[in-house]
């Protein structure tokens, strides 16, 4: 397999009958080079047949003579499909996906901000670009070095205005009242009722993809683990899987199982924190205190057993950088029992609490049809009745033998997202117990050889949803590009729909029930 098609040096096949090549790695990922016509034809076919867009990005492959390349990954039928489209280096352009997959709209805008690859989408406003660089600078181009900041006044961002009698705007952020990350929310309201919410993100853009271009693939895990700290294990895991795919590295079974243990622990830790915060925003300080204690003790166990409260730097290309002994196993078994007992008791209290339920039930409702149309993934999708969980749909080891169960709710409101979190704590604790009982013996890490392959994709079902890392390499000129995708790209637009006709004071609660990533999204 080569990054450049062997026949003609310029990868083109006519029509949707493209040549698929299976990539190494635990996921069934097929890659193909496509031309403009088959790009569009495949997207239309997948859209019509319930395919899902996972991510869309671009890379500058001019040094390899390929111009700018647009990549998209879909899940369709029983495989992942990664298509790459080479566009001319002097006039990069491609056929937009957002008319079929609305979740592509912001990805298309980001693609232009970073690489100057344009498409025929309607919304031409910048997305990641604020005043940090100008409209003619494209940071992910290989020849980009530095750009001067542009004064905000010189480059205003046009929000969509809602007009009519009694409509006014509330602008919130980027600095918020609570201890959360920066982003801007523009509400158009009548009285307390939300007529429209428009999000403006990108404030925490740190040029991570550009940084990764200059780092060795096996050394960059520390940075990838610090894109979004609450999902550090999932990020580091997806990155490690992608690096292992281009390095033909086989992780020892014990390392594979330990990774799943870390991912499930991360899921539980975040769900505990979110349940506490949801109680707080719903007006039950008792719940905040109780879940705060549970989470803190959980984090302290992680610091003791794995060396970091949030599990940073525990998953590395080739395996894991930690191991557990029999004392740790019995420690975690006891912890599982105590945790389940406590969360079940708290769930009873919360379910019986009329005041809290009054806030939860019906707030921020997103029905299944709309969630599906918007491309919802992960926890938010499952709370709206959509089967979306990599651990079940594409189970890679050890999930193929763990047989995770999906946690679904139908009603799509805050109460449903609370219920999915409670159910997933139960399920993750069950999986952890199976892992602790059946974890194979042996080494936890294999040496990762210098990468030789050209394409690698890794994906992990993080607590928010699937985190995907894709690596493209051109060995001839020693270039690589790392694309990291957070499920918040799909799920941030859900929030804009979920809050419609809800009250402004309910927004913090609804927002917290999604708890989407800013840094993971902005990168």
């Amino acid at each position: 397999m080569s990054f450049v098609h062997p026949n003609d040096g310029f990868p083109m096949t006519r029509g949707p009958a493209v040549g698929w090549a299976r990539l190494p790695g635990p996921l069934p990922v097929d890659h193909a080079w496509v031309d403009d016509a088959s790009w569009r034809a495949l997207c239309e076919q997948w859209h019509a047949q319930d395919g899902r867009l996972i991510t869309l990005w671009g890379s500058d492959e001019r040094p390899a003579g390929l111009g700018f390349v647009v990549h998209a990954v879909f899940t369709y039928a029983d495989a992942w499909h990664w298509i790459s489209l080479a566009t001319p280096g002097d006039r990069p352009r491609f056929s937009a996906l957002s008319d079929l997959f609305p979740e592509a709209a912001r990805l298309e805008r980001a693609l232009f901000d970073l690489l100057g690859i344009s498409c025929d989408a309607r919304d031409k406003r910048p997305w990641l670009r604020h005043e940090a660089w100008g409209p003619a600078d494209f940071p992910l181009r290989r020849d980009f070095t530095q750009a001067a900041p542009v004064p905000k006044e010189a480059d205003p961002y046009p929000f969509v205005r809602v007009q009519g009698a009694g409509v006014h705007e509330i602008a919130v952020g980027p600095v918020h009242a609570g201890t959360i990350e920066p982003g801007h929310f523009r509400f158009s309201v009548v009285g307390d009722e939300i007529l429209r919410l428009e999000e403006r993100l990108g404030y925490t853009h740190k040029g991570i993809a550009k940084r990764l271009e200059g780092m060795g693939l096996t050394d960059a895990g520390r940075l990838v683990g610090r894109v979004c700290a609450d999902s550090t294990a999932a990020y580091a895991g997806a990155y490690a899987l992608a690096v292992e795919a281009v390095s033909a590295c086989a992780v020892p079974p014990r390392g594979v199982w330990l990774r799943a243990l870390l991912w499930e622990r991360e899921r539980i830790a975040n769900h505990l924190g979110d349940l506490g915060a949801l109680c707080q925003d719903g007006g039950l300080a008792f719940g905040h205190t109780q879940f705060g204690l549970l989470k803190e003790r959980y984090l302290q166990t992680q610091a003791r057993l794995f060396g970091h409260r949030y599990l940073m730097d525990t998953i590395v290309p080739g395996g894991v950088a930690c191991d557990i002994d029999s004392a740790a196993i019995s420690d975690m078994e006891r912890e599982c029992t105590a945790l389940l007992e406590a969360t079940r008791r708290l769930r009873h209290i919360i379910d019986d609490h009329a005041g809290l339920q009054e806030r939860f039930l019906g707030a921020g409702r997103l029905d299944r049809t709309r969630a599906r149309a918007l491309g919802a993934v992960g926890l938010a999708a499952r709370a709206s009745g959509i089967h979306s969980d990599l651990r079940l749909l594409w189970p890679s080891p050890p999930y193929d033998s763990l047989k995770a169960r999906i946690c679904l709710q139908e009603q799509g409101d805050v109460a449903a997202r609370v219920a999915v979190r409670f159910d997933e704590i139960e399920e993750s604790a069950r999986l952890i117990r199976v892992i602790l009982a059946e974890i194979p013996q042996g080494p936890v890490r294999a040496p990762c050889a210098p990468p030789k392959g050209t394409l690698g994709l890794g994906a992990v079902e993080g607590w928010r949803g699937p985190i995907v890392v894709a690596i493209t390499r051109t060995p001839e000129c020693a270039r690589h590009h790392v694309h990291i995708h957070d499920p918040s790209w799909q799920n941030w637009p859900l929030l804009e729909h979920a809050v419609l006709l809800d009250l402004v004071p309910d927004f913090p609660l609804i927002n917290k029930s999604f708890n989407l990533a800013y840094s993971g999204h902005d990168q």
Partner: protein
Amino acid sequence: MHKLLRQIVKTGMLRSRPCPRRDRARDIHTSPPSLAEELGRALAVRHVDTGSCNGCELEIQALGNAIYNLAAIGVRLVASPRHADILLVTGPVARAMAAPLRATYDAVPAPKRVVALGDCACGCGVYSPNYATVGKVDDVIPVDVAIPGCPPPPETIREAFATLICR
């Protein structure tokens, strides 16, 4: 309701942590003398995230739990910079956040202090300056107290605040 009360009783009172002694706060770099004379023994803190990965935010939130109980030593997180004595800044200052950071700093009434929390804010993290980030907080607004760590554990942050008050 009885279940709720029973759970409160079952949780019981947690042992309170004393104000740490000055010599224990080794890793914390402070330039000014104690704030106690200027600001009194209760501090109102406004947090600004200028591009953090949210690790420092998780630990600031953890400071509010019953184990660290920051409020017990007189430190309170407030919703507006106009209510604050201290600006607590996290992250490597993304360029898009430099202007909001300056505006927030200007909105804090004097006397005020700035605490840079975490390796990124202190300029020793994974995010060196590039086209999208400025670098450390001190390059944008003057920093009085630097608390390194990735992220700094809650004990360290609590000790830093306690040092500011108790010295």
